[in-house]
């Protein structure tokens, strides 16, 4: 519903929290090049800048957007707005999607800004503009898609939990999906059959959010993902997002006080 989206998007804008990720991204694009030993290889400054910008964007998405989702959801429950909107016959799904649109838009803005900054300031001179634009566009698309499910789960959990535990759940999903699952992969090939079987199941379940992280591809200049693997990865991440949306909408059901 438009009213719910407008009310809370305006609230978010007025609370001025968005200034922090914007500043961090700008600082990252300015100071990122200083982190590279550019006296040895001057071209390293571009990849260092790209890496800093995208790392900052991921941190902003995980921490700031995650917190925005948790705060937004908890606000509905603690301030009596759930009852208010329910009484005017706003369905749970409409309500959930109207609120979810806000952190999704935040993710689009965060990753979109980092994509634009990397496109402008992170290109190594020998990489063609078109290819650089394509790989950045893919990175933005995957990052937004990957984070959609996590923000949906955080938002839905606030129907049951307070801000801090809901945010922590989202943070743990992110850490597991981005880094933990790589450790699971290593255990999978271990000698202990019990552990490797367990790791195999975990590996199959996922979620493989690391597919959404284009940082190595951008930093090491691997270029854009070819069409076929791009589609497979996009379908996988879209499926994860859809499952999370389904689970989230179930968790977001109105609870009578």
């Amino acid at each position, binding site marked *: 519903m438009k*009213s719910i989206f407008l009310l809370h998007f*305006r609230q978010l804008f007025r609370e001025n929290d968005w200034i922090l990720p914007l500043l961090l991204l700008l600082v990252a694009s300015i100071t990122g090049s200083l982190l590279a030993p550019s006296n040895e290889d001057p071209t390293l400054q571009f990849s260092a800048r790209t890496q800093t910008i995208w790392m900052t964007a991921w941190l902003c998405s995980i921490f700031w957007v995650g917190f925005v989702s948790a705060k937004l959801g908890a606000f509905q429950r603690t301030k009596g707005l759930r009852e208010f909107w*329910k*009484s*005017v016959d706003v369905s749970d799904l409409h309500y959930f999607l109207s609120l979810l649109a806000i952190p999704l838009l935040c993710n689009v803005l965060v990753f979109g800004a980092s994509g634009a900054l990397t496109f402008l300031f992170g290109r190594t001179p020998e990489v063609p503009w078109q290819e650089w634009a394509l790989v950045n566009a893919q990175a933005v698309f995957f990052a937004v898609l990957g984070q959609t499910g996590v923000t949906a789960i955080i938002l839905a959990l606030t129907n049951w939990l307070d801000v801090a535990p809901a945010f922590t759940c989202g943070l743990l999903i992110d850490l597991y999906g981005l880094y933990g699952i790589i450790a699971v992969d290593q255990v999978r090939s271990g000698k202990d059959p019990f552990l490797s079987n367990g790791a195999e199941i975990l590996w199959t379940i996922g979620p493989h959010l690391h597919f959404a992280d284009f940082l190595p591809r951008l930093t090491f200049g691997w270029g854009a993902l070819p069409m076929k693997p791009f589609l497979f990865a996009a379908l996988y991440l879209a499926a994860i997002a859809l499952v999370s949306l389904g689970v989230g909408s179930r968790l977001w059901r109105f609870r*009578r006080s």
Partner: protein
Amino acid sequence: MNSQVTGSWKDERQTEFLQYPGLIMENPIVLQINKGLEIGYKRRCIAKLNDDLRFRRGEISLLLGSNGQGKTTLMKTLSGLLPAVAGHVKKVRTMFVSDEVEFPACLTPLEIVSCFDPAGDYCDLARELIDSLELQNKCYGVLSKGNRQKARIVFAEVLARVREVELLALDEPFAGLDFQARDCLVKRWIDAKNPKLHLVVSMHPSEIASLPSQIILVGQGQIDTAAPETPWRELRPRLQKTELCAA
């Protein structure tokens, strides 16, 4: 104090509140509830309806009862937020505004109204209400308790029109309001009534400011109706808690 309330109520009693000339409606009844309805939480009945209730468009029902007797529960049941323990409540376009609902603290009442009414159809109405209630257009978070209550009423009036609500339930709208604001609201609800909806207003009995179309009494586990012209001295014993009566 009670005699004062009784006096002011009697003075303002006018029969034109009961009927609205010129109001032509195909179906003037928004909601009809048969006696026997039981309200409560989780199958535990806290009050039972002893009379049939009819909510007509363009009219006002006053819901009276002491604390904890089930006024809010009845409003929530009418609004579809709670299921009836026994009996049935037909689904109509409702809106329930609690006196505890809060809005984003960093937005002003007019900004919140503009979110509820993006097309701006009722912007003038909101401005007029804000002016007449002397509500300051400051951030909601810094408004006093009374001013927040005024803001909630403005939001309810606007959103009820935007969403074409048929039954608007305001839970204790006069709580924290100064007497000028109460008078202004009562006058507005009676003079400039919305012909499309029925307004249900719950309040503490001591807050009665004017004559409604219908009085609903909630107390001692019973929900009864009383004629609009019933004097306060007759209503009072019916609202008193059993133990207080015995004392």
